[in-house]
């Protein structure tokens, strides 16, 4: 591990964290454009976060010590995940970026938010958490199985960097029904996990629609800023995972300048394409009724299960 590699890793890790608000801004911008509105500038999320950081946080009297801890837990979880995901070259803590640990860190973040939601003692938090519980019971297994399919397909064990590396090396041969099915399941999980449109409307605070917002309702000031960054970071991580693990072709395998440049370009294109896809999805489909969601989620669960079964049976 020479110094260049370490420097590159830290740079890539910092870049991932910094660009996450930008990507959310871009998605909002594209969505606004599609609904032929001008929409805020793509740097608006940075300004929001900056504003929130300076504001004083108003906390409800019922909130306990855990209420103040939740933002920190979620930030830690997401930063750890950012360190693990292969972005341009490979995860910062490459040898330790175990796939199962990543899934459980996602659960850690979700668990902290669910419990945080119940803090305020108001109906919104309770409703948000209970709906999040329903969704997560169906999302988490789909996420676990889809990533596990990849590790079983490549057979290189559970390190995310090795997996993406081996799919990348296999090139076109890697495209198998298992990979496609797992990818589809992962896309649905991504949309559901980050509470994008078909499952929850991220832009409004309308009680009927909110799942993710419901849990954040009690937070303000620094707490809210951290929670917002954490969820933006989560979206970016999901997108990078989709980009560099499910369709990794183009990410740098070696440390040569040419490869790195190519992989930076490729990753930017991928992120933009995915952002465009999400924005397109959000402006075409309306939000589903809460109790129609399970059908969609079980569909994603079934997809991931079929992916794994096809891996073994075919």
């Amino acid at each position: 591990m020479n110094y260049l590699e370490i420097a590159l890793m830290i740079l890539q890790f910092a870049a991932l964290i910094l660009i996450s608000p930008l990507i959310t801004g871009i998605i909002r911008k594209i969505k606004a454009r599609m609904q032929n509105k001008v929409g805020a500038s793509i740097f608006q999320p940075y300004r929001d976060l900056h504003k929130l950081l300076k504001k004083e946080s108003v906390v409800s009297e019922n909130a306990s010590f855990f209420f103040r801890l939740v933002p920190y837990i979620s930030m830690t979880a997401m930063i750890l995940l950012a360190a693990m995901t292969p972005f341009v070259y490979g995860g910062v803590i490459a040898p330790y970026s175990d796939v199962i640990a990543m899934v459980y860190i996602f659960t850690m973040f979700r668990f902290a938010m669910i419990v945080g939601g119940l803090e305020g003692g108001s109906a919104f938090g309770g409703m948000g958490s209970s709906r999040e519980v329903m969704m997560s019971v169906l999302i988490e297994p789909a996420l676990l199985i889809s990533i596990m399919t990849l590790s079983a397909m490549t057979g290189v064990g559970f390190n995310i960097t090795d997996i993406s590396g081996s799919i990348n090396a296999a090139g076109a041969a890697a495209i198998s029904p298992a990979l496609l099915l797992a990818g589809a399941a992962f896309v649905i999980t991504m949309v559901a996990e980050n509470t994008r449109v078909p499952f929850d409307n991220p832009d409004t605070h309308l009680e009927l629609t909110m799942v993710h917002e419901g849990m954040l309702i009690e937070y303000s000031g620094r707490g809210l800023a951290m929670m917002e960054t954490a969820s933006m970071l989560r979206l970016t991580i999901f997108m990078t995972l989709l980009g560099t693990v499910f369709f990794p072709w183009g990410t740098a395998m070696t440390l040569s300048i040419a490869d790195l440049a190519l992989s930076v370009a490729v990753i930017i294109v991928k992120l933009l394409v995915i952002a465009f896809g999400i924005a397109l999805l959000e402006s075409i489909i309306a939000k589903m009724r809460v109790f129609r969601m399970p059908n969609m989620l079980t569909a994603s669960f079934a997809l991931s299960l079929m992916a794994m079964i096809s891996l073994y049976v075919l």
Partner: protein
Amino acid sequence: MDIFNLTLQNEALTVIFFAAVFIPALAGTILSLMFRYNKVANLIAGLCITSCAVGIAAYPLRALGVPLSYTFPLSSAVGDYALAIDQISSVMISLSSVIFMLIVVHVVKSSSDSGCRYSGLLNVLFIASFLCMAADSVLVLLISWEMITLSTFLLAKKGNNDRARWMFFVIAHIGGLMLMCAYGYLAWVAGTQTLSDWNGLGAIVGSTTSMILVLMIVMGFGTKLGLLPFHAWMPGLYGTAPTHTAALLSTVCSNVAVLTIFKSIYSYIGVTESMSVIAFAIIGLAAATALWGAMESLVQKEPKKILAYSSVENMALVILCLALGMIYINESPVFAKLILIAGLLHTLNHSVFKSLMLMTIDTVEDCTGEKNIGRMGGLAKTLPLLAVVSIIGVFSMAAIPPTNGFVSEWLMIQSIMGVNLQSKGMSLLIPLVLAAVGICGMMMAASYARLYGFIFLGRPRSDGMREPRPMKNGTLLPMAVLAILCVGMGFFATVIMDVLTTGVVSVTGIAPSPSYRSVMSEEMLPLILGVLIVITSVAVLLVVRPGKEREVRTWGCGEDLGKEMQYSSIGFSQPLVRVFHPFYGDTTVVRETKEGSKKTVHTEFTEPFVRYLYMPLGNAITAISEKISKTQTNRIQTYFGYVLITLIAVLLAVRIL
């Protein structure tokens, strides 16, 4: 070591060890029979703690090479009383003694129900579970297993919960009878009564019989672990019994059961190629039980019942690992070793976090007097220390990374995924098992979030919650130790895994050469992950230091939040109930309130197994016995008639046959 004469030393050490374990506990039992007032109760509990403390020394002594095997001079009708602690049981004994000791300390400190009788029975339970884990003769195993059932039955007495206790006693006894048959047959096949000479009896007996034996042993112990058809007594008993009994039952007794199942399947019977059919059956049953436990725990109204179903789910996962091991042992022994370690590690972790959570629930009940979770809430503000301890417990139960719950779940998924089984049919099994583990994991996390959220967070829903009595000093000590143990076992999991490997290797006989580490993704991961989490959280804390705070009443959209504005515990799990509706036996009940004017609508959740399996069975038996008892017409003539008819029937039978 060889500076002093080892053999003499070992013999003396073994005798001293066993004497030090049994004598204080026996003294405690005898004292409890004689005295009734409380001062003696603390003495008896103290005696129990001393014998637990000595019990902890089992593993270090065994590691030092002291062969802890001893035969009592007095023999019984079916064979002599022999004890032998091998490698794996020494680990189990040490940890169970630690847990037992902490629970007894909590009993003394909380003194919620610690009369002489209660602490005397605690001594009896400790002796019985120690004997069961260290049993070397069939009789000791069976008698101590039934003694555990008996002492738990007597310990569970509180108010008049006779119905729940009786159901537990009968189901456990049915399990006991099944074990009697299985081990009786094995004793006959093996020819000897001492368990340590039994290995590979499956080969002698042939595959179908060994499969039946494995099923009987798993179901026999399953009655106490809560496998599917036998789990219906658990919510009833956990709900009504003193919490410490529930804690002991779900930790110490489950450890004993898992240890004995493990030893019976892998060393007494020995796993052969052709036993995969029974392994499939047990896997199916364990997965179904885990899903069932997870689903039911989401809708329970009492915290103790939630934890009862969580024990069902956790123990089902352990049985799942043991059954998977049966399949892997022929395909790829290294992964078999990994999954067995995962199973045993999960049992240890489970006993740590389950006893922690049950202790917190007992303290909650003690301080607030509330039993129903629907009337709890807002305790974190008034009892912050309790909330801290229990959030650690909840984190480790929900398998959140830094804690021990995560490690065993992580190991389990790795070992399920890692192996690539040759035969197609078997490999189809892996995705289904993984799906089951995934769903259970998340559902249990949801139910633990509900448990913690509706006890400690939000606004107090009853006046018992508004001003709870202060915690008795010292009750926090055992809980704090367990919390540290939870996180500690999370960080230093690899140490425990190595200890378990030697035990697993000695029992299953798999070659120790390719160590389980070679197959694992990254053996130091638990420690590194824990350290990373600490570093990142400290970094985030430094970067975003907590700013000014202003406490304000929760925003209630204009008017102040009424009592009902807060989410109810059943409401919380209502979406999931709608998703998995066919599995729940929920009925909506409309009840008149006292004033008669207002009607309240409740959803009652009855355990479907009780309604569709236990009740009809019970009614059928009573109906048949009703019919048979009609034969007693009380007229002497009919009795002469019966004698005559029997005489004629037998004579005819003799003549014809």
